[in-house]
């Protein structure tokens, strides 16, 4: 007969950890099928030759990466120079995503602080209000935004009517419009983790800092921010990573001039003009960027766990 597991004070969790594998199995299967396999396929595709009507020819080639980084002239026979087109799209994407993250942080931190310091029911109501936009599909919200900010849209009409401006304010199809779209789409991803961190913040720490001669500014930078840092870092990653690969906001609000990585990749898999290996290679490069960010995050988290 099998021996009953002994319950010991420090190992109650251990006693039941045998149930762990069945619990996690469905998630493993889903991640295996819908994440690992597609990513592996992309990796393989990025090293294949392109088929002209979309798809791939099973023949090893580095041409996708070559095309991304190097320019060999119109006929492909000049000495290679660095191809800036795609690198600059990536650079713009990083810059846009970084700026969106920064704006979300500047607006999101006070918002999160405000919500976390409300009492009782008010807190729930404010949190609920933050999540309301998620009841509407992102595509629809982005299209409505396009409608709002276009040259003869309600926003411009309002400013014209109160005489604040004499000509329509040109927002649509600018970097600013993309920025607005990214900021609006991902702001709650910044607010919620910071809220969770501030909620756990022990306000006696602020009093202790004041008691030990710290001004409010010093208290903010030396005590509050370091304590809620895990929430801030999580929020920044949750905004930065999807912003980096976003294609709805740049497509709908930015127009052709303000291309971002997401749109570039999307183009490669659409219709006959596409280039699957190139799209796959661009995806792999994007993925490496994201992995760098996540490594930084993982390090940060483990360091905070002392």
């Amino acid at each position, binding site marked *: 007969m099998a021996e009953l597991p002994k319950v010991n004070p420090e190992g109650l969790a251990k006693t039941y950890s045998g149930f762990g594998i069945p619990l996690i199995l469905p998630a493993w299967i889903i991640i295996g099928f819908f994440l690992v396999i597609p990513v592996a396929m992309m990796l393989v595709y990025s090293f294949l030759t392109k088929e002209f009507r979309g798809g791939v020819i099973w023949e090893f080639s580095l041409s996708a990466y070559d095309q991304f980084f190097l320019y060999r002239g119109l006929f492909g026979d000049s000495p290679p120079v660095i191809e800036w087109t795609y690198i600059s799209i990536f650079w713009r994407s990083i810059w846009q995503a970084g700026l969106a993250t920064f704006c979300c942080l500047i607006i999101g931190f006070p918002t999160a602080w405000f919500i976390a310091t409300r009492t009782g029911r008010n807190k729930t109501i404010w949190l609920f209000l933050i999540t309301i936009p998620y009841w509407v599909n992102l595509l629809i919200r982005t299209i409505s935004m396009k409608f709002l900010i276009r040259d003869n849209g309600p926003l411009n009409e309002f400013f014209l009517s109160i005489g604040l401006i004499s000509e329509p304010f040109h927002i649509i199809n600018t970097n600013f419009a993309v920025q607005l779209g990214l900021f609006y789409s991902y702001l709650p991803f910044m607010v919620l983790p910071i809220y969770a961190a501030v909620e756990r913040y022990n306000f006696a720490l602020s*009093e*202790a800092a004041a*008691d030990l001669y710290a001004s409010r500014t010093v208290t903010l930078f030396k005590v509050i921010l370091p304590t809620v840092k895990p929430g801030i870092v999580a929020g920044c990653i949750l905004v930065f990573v999807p912003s980096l690969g976003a294609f709805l906001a740049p497509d709908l609000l930015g127009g052709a001039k303000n291309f971002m990585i997401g749109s570039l990749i999307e183009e490669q898999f659409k219709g006959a003009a596409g280039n699957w290996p190139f799209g796959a290679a661009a995806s792999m490069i994007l993925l490496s960027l994201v992995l760098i960010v996540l490594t930084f995050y993982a390090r940060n988290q483990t360091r905070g766990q002392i």
Partner: protein
Amino acid sequence: MSTDKKISIDIQNVTKRFGAFTALNGVSLDIRDNEFFTLLGPSGCGKTTLLRLIAGFEEVTDGAIHLYGQNIADLLPNERPINTVFQQYALFPHMNVTDNVMFGLLRLGQDTSKAKARVLEVLELVRLSDFADRMPGQLSGGQQQRVALARALAPSPKVLLLDEPLSALDLKLRQAVRLELQQIQVQTGITFIFVTHDQEEALTMSDRIAVLEGGRVQQVGSAREIYEAPENKFVADFIGETNLIDVTVSNVEKGKGSCVLPGGAQIICSAAEGALVGSGHLSLRPERIKITASGKGMLEGKAVRHIYLGTDLHIEVSLTSGSHVTVRMQNSTQIKIPNVGQSVGLDFEASSARLLVD
């Protein structure tokens, strides 16, 4: 202790209201330089509020607080030369012990090498030198408590506030830390203001105690004064155990009151200031009562219950007037213990009784 000592903190008629709730109502206290002063009272009595007013975390609604003659009403907490040991310690979780203790010193503009030397000195004082590099999360409750103490002592404040600092420790540790705190107070010469709801803590550590209840000061005095000469029913009952005996007061004069006990015996005993003629209460500590043969005491009754306490024994006596009196006896083989149901007399010296203000 001489009364002409310098005043450290002078609290003048301070009132604090939170909306409609009055937490402190016209509190006046003189806390002397270099004194171990305790604010004692049940939860909700206003003692923590008073501490927070002194620290500057709350604003005074009415009245004034002076620190060595200077009104500190307009000073922010970070501008007051007062440090606090918080109830849950409030150590900065992202800093190690050294950085926690050094925090206040650096804010005061001390250079790092000087501050480090001071940190070592203070950690030595609280016997935590070996833990300088630990994070707060790696320390036991008692060690965290000592870091909190070191952190508050490091900037050499004029006054140290301690908000129930021992309440999170277990009993044995609490008793050890009590002695240590007292020693540190003597060594550093800093005025300590100690908040507690534990009367034993207050009695054993303090130079003087202020008993608070309902936002008012009930009595201020040394441990002995408060225990032996309580002013009113609340103080007599809150500090230690006591028997409150209904008496009829016939005369009060020059701190003495003559009253008639239930059963008719008459005594003259010390009376609290403000005790009135008419019906009143006498406080009689259980350990000051002797059980004698029936008919030979000041009071008459019947033993109804024994309560065994180890070193001591409580005998509950039902008086002929109907009320109950508890008598404390040493659990000794030489003392005869009355049986339950036996009629007994209760005797005490008049000097052990105290006529109270109701």
